[in-house]
């Protein structure tokens, strides 16, 4: 991340003039240690244990039939036909939700970057969906928006003489994406708004004077400037949504191609009680997260910036 490098450079510049002695270095290590140990105990060690679990034949229903099976859990994950649809569901839900919330978030950021009466109130209202507890958001959408009887969307459909739609059963993927987009649009908007407000207004004025239209100013000056902000938004948004569980558990229970990896693991471990198999899904989730966070994002930005950089 470019921001990290920037921070590091700044830090180096700040501390360059002084010499670091040994005692100081040890006290610095002492400061860092509690946090590092705490994290190793609660995240790194469990992850290693997950890898060990994934090599075991271990179903809680048969506690005596437990032993090492090597890659069998991965093999059966690949052959049982559960894993691949789950990866597809996770990636599709993440991609659609992130892209939609960046695009809509950008629209709102531009609208709220203007000066107008009540802007602070509009901004406050806009960030609210992100703050609403995800479980509450999913329930509210499921019953008061999507429901065939009492849902507002179907009340609108009836008013417009359109067919009534049972959103979460007829369009499960779309329903999940709608709720996630609703929650993450404010997140993207906040980050992009910070970017817009950090823009050099002089350059924008100069572009106007030179006769560049609004659209050209946006694509040639604003968008490249926002690149870093879009990157941060997409990266953080993807990593969070890749783990998505709440709207799946509440809206669809994994039906209709929405069984994300987190939900699959939950089902296999806590309903199927198959620890070994579930652990294998956990490891696959980590691998997928690493892939998405590195390769896919890099490609996305190359495509995205191909138009922006001359």
């Amino acid at each position, binding site marked *: 991340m470019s921001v990290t490098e920037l921070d590091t450079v700044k830090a180096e510049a700040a501390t360059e003039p002084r010499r670091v002695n040994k005692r100081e270095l040890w006290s610095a290590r002492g400061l860092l240690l509690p946090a590092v140990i*705490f994290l190793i105990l609660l995240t790194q060690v469990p992850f290693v244990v997950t890898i060990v*679990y994934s090599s075991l034949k271990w179903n809680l229903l048969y506690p005596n039939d437990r032993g090492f099976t090597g890659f069998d859990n991965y093999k059966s994950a690949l052959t049982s036909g559960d894993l691949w649809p789950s990866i597809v569901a996770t990636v599709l839900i993440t991609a659609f939700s992130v892209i939609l919330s960046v695009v809509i978030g950008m629209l709102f950021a531009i609208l709220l970057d203007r000066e107008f009466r009540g802007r602070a109130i509009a901004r406050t*209202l806009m960030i*609210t969906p992100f703050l609403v507890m995800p479980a*509450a958001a999913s329930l509210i959408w499921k019953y008061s928006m999507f429901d065939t009887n009492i849902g507002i969307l179907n009340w609108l459909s009836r008013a417009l003489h359109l067919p009534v739609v049972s959103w979460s059963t007829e369009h499960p993927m779309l329903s999940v994406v709608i709720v996630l987009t609703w929650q993450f649009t404010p997140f993207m908007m906040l980050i992009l708004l*910070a970017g817009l407000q950090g823009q050099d207004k002089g350059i924008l004025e100069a572009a106007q004077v030179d006769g560049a239209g609004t659209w050209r100013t946006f694509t040639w000056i604003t968008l490249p400037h926002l690149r870093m902000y879009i990157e941060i938004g997409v990266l953080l948004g993807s990593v969070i949504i890749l783990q998505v569980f709440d709207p799946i558990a509440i809206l669809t229970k994994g039906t209709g191609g929405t069984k994300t990896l987190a939900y699959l693991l939950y089902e296999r471990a806590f309903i199927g009680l198959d620890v070994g198999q579930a652990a294998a899904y956990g490891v696959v989730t980590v691998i997928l997260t690493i892939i998405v966070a590195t390769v896919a994002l890099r490609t996305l930005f190359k495509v995205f910036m191909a138009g922006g950089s001359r």
Partner: protein
Amino acid sequence: MNRSLKGSLVTTLTWILVLAFFFPVFWMILNGFKPESVASSVNPKLFFSPSTDGYQLAMDRGMKGYLLNSVTASVTATIIAVVLSIPAAYALSIRRVKNVENALSFFISTRFMPLAAVVLPLFMILKTLGLLDNIYMLAIVYGAVNLPVAVWMMRSFFLEVPFEIIEAARVDGAGLGREIFRVALPLVLPGVASAALITFIFSWNEYFLATLLTSSAARTTPPFLGSFVDGRGQFLAVLSAAATIAALPVIVAGWVAQKQLVRGLSMGAIK
């Protein structure tokens, strides 16, 4: 087109879009104050004689206990994350360890590790120790989940402390504790607020771990809300009331600390 006319058109459009976007929240709050028969009617009603039956019913379902558990878990997690992140961030900014980059990427990779990768061993260990359904165990896990963000954020604030101030304190013979807590920390209180806010929000709203690591005594609000899914009959009013209470603390915290929110969400990258 006239410039001011165009301006007010855009403003009107902005408001329409913002209000449409906010509508589900508005509707949730409104439905919470409706009598059940009104809330569950096929034709939505804007005007009605308000009732607190929904809130009463939510409390009858034992919501107070779940809220108290949520408070315990979120506040404890926030304290853990803030207390551990201050010295760590200090060692990554002002009194620096050798491999700052390695330590930073250790923290960020931990943040990005999916909960799915750690939940099974945590569950089995806690089960063996008889510590499942223990609210403090959930709080400790939340503290760990949010610690990396807190470290990154606190670091970005410490980096802004002018080094002359630290140096002056050292010349005056201030010890390490005094240097951190008396000299540097008062200058980064907004950072502490950011770290605390983000940890609180994520812990309060967390559903996955809460569902798996608690069952009854330590159950928090999100899984309690989740249990409405299997409800029968009319329950929109009580559901909306419960959802409103559940969402309120974080909404208010986020509204009050909007500035800290952006910096916190971006892990300190955006100022």
